[in-house]
């Protein structure tokens, strides 16, 4: 029994499992390659991006719906953790646990409102939501510190041990990233992941087998919020400072592009995307003035080179819709009563 299942029958989930191992392997190997304080700082950034993109992958990659709210969720997690610790003396452990819960609730609320919209309008709704969050970060000055940012966030600590050493910061981020990746892998290879993909392939058939698209997509969006909340809290404890500009529209776009270019919907996508984002960040520190221009050009070239990569999911679903249109044309034929002629033709 097991031998049969271990055979090629599981190629797709086996590929996902391989990609998970690569992800986990990189989390272990990278800090061995370079372990200076600076390098560890970079790897910590990468682990945070990994969590962020693993979350985005649920909605963007698996459910096939572009979300521009991830940067806003990221920021919400960071500000929630920061404000809780700075203004209310909440212990960092508790803040790390509560920030994702808050972000998940916000994501579910936005999801309930926008989940039934067609994909481009869903994207615009998430853009609107992300922008509202971004603007609030800058405008609620008494709470957030406004454009100047929130300062004085304590380091993460548990049982009196402060996570100030770069290796400890990295360890915390990497462990959470690994747990997140394993959980994402589990979901992707189980029936929930299958059903999320199924909905993109054939909406009627997914409904007919009892998979509720609304609930599944809401789940995917909620999860993307939860992961963003974890990443945000880590970001707050890592930088010990948060400011609105980290979570702007450009970041939202960058996250989507990084994931799509690296392979949305696959287990390997988030880690490759995280490496890409980290590379951009390092590069941008040296060429700040030219960064947006170069980023834009690279991004445009990528979209022109891999149009299916960006829009593959969407195009496939567009074809589905055309099929459905054909079906309603069939229905119209059903309606347009023309009785006696056709059967003879069918018989011959």
């Amino acid at each position, binding site marked *: 029994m097991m031998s049969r299942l271990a055979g090629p029958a599981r190629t797709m989930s086996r590929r996902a499992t391989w990609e998970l191992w690569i992800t986990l392997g990189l989390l272990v190997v990278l800090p061995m390659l370079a372990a200076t304080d600076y390098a560890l700082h970079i790897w910590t950034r990468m682990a945070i991006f990994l969590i962020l993109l693993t979350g985005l992958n649920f909605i963007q990659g698996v459910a096939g719906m572009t979300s521009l709210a991830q940067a806003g969720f990221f920021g919400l997690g960071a500000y929630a953790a920061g404000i809780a610790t700075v203004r209310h003396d909440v212990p960092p452990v508790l803040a790390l646990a509560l920030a994702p819960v808050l972000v998940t609730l916000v994501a579910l609320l936005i999801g309930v409102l926008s989940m039934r919209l067609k994909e481009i309008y869903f994207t615009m709704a998430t853009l609107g939501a992300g922008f509202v969050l971004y*603007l609030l970060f800058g405008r609620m000055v008494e709470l957030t510190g406004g454009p100047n940012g929130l300062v004085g966030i304590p380091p993460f600590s548990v049982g009196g041990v402060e996570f100030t050493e770069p290796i400890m910061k990295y360890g915390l981020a990497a462990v959470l990233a690994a747990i997140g990746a394993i959980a994402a892998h589990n979901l992707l290879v189980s029936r929930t992941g299958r059903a999320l993909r199924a909905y993109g392939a054939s909406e009627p058939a997914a409904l007919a087998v009892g998979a509720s698209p609304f609930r599944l997509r809401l789940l995917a969006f909620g999860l993307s919020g939860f992961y963003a909340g974890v990443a945000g809290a880590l970001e707050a404890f890592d930088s010990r400072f948060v400011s609105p500009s980290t979570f702007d529209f450009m970041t939202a776009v960058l996250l989507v592009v990084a994931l799509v270019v690296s392979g949305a919907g696959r287990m390997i996508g988030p880690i490759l995307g995280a490496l890409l984002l980290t590379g951009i960040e390092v590069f941008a520190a040296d060429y700040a003035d030219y960064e947006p221009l170069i980023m834009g050009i690279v991004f445009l070239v990528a979209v022109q080179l891999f149009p299916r990569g960006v829009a593959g999911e969407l*195009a496939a679903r567009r074809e589905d819709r055309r099929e459905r249109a054909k079906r309603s044309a069939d229905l119209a034929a059903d309606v347009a009563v023309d009785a006696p002629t056709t059967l003879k033709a069918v018989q011959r």
Partner: protein
Amino acid sequence: MDTGLFIQVILSGLSVGAIYALVAVGFGVVFNATGAINFVQGEYVMVGGLSAGMLYEAWDVPVLVAILVAIALTTLLGVLTEMGLLGFGRLRTPASITIATIAIAVVVKGAAMLISNRDTFALPSLLGPGSLQVLGASTSRQTLLNLLLAVLAVAALTLFFQRTKLGTTLRAAASDSETLQTFGVSYRTTARWAFAIAAAVGALAGAGLAPLTVMSFDSGTLLGLKGFAAAMLGGLGNPRGALAGGLMLGVAEAVMSGYGAAAYADVVAFVVLLAILTLRPTGMLGTSRAVRT
């Protein structure tokens, strides 16, 4: 309640709302021709306002000439946008075109940052610096000009879409680009016209905005998104809806700022966007497009 203040708030709302209306019109024109949402639209406003301001302030070009040159430059940018999007023949779905427009918006913004050296520029009003007395409230003359511009632009475009051959072709593209191609009108030609018109309208908005507020390389993104919210409010692709949506949004923001919540005025547009998508995604005036699955 102070009626003078109230009228002043409404007038300044209409003044900015007229700008949003122009941006919204631009979104509609491109959407009708390609089905895509053109994220460069806000950057057209920025390029129009910024280049006119630079010409006037740095190079001492007369205001009117500066504005005309800026509109010409921006229109060229519109044509270039179309070439950058469709010139490679690889982007076929509205969704992929939309994503590519984000890339172009980033390029334009990045280039503007380098060219302007992060400086800000402004224009004087074409009607001079004096203020205008309306029902006991005083407002800048630019307010009147902006309203006039928006109404004229919407009227001109409405006539253009209904009375001219090119206009009807552009509207036809909205319903079916495949049929259009069988009639021998190339999708690219209609798309190029659409982007050129959208860019020109955007530049006009920039020229109308520059006397009200200073322009910098990063003025475009927020303006574009607010214009999109206005377009959705009025019904995407409907010029008169764009006018109504833009003015409503402008007034709503002005009321927020005028009555003590200035910090949150920018949020209004996005709350409106979320609300309209959720409650009535075809816009207040409605279009026939289905937006739900």
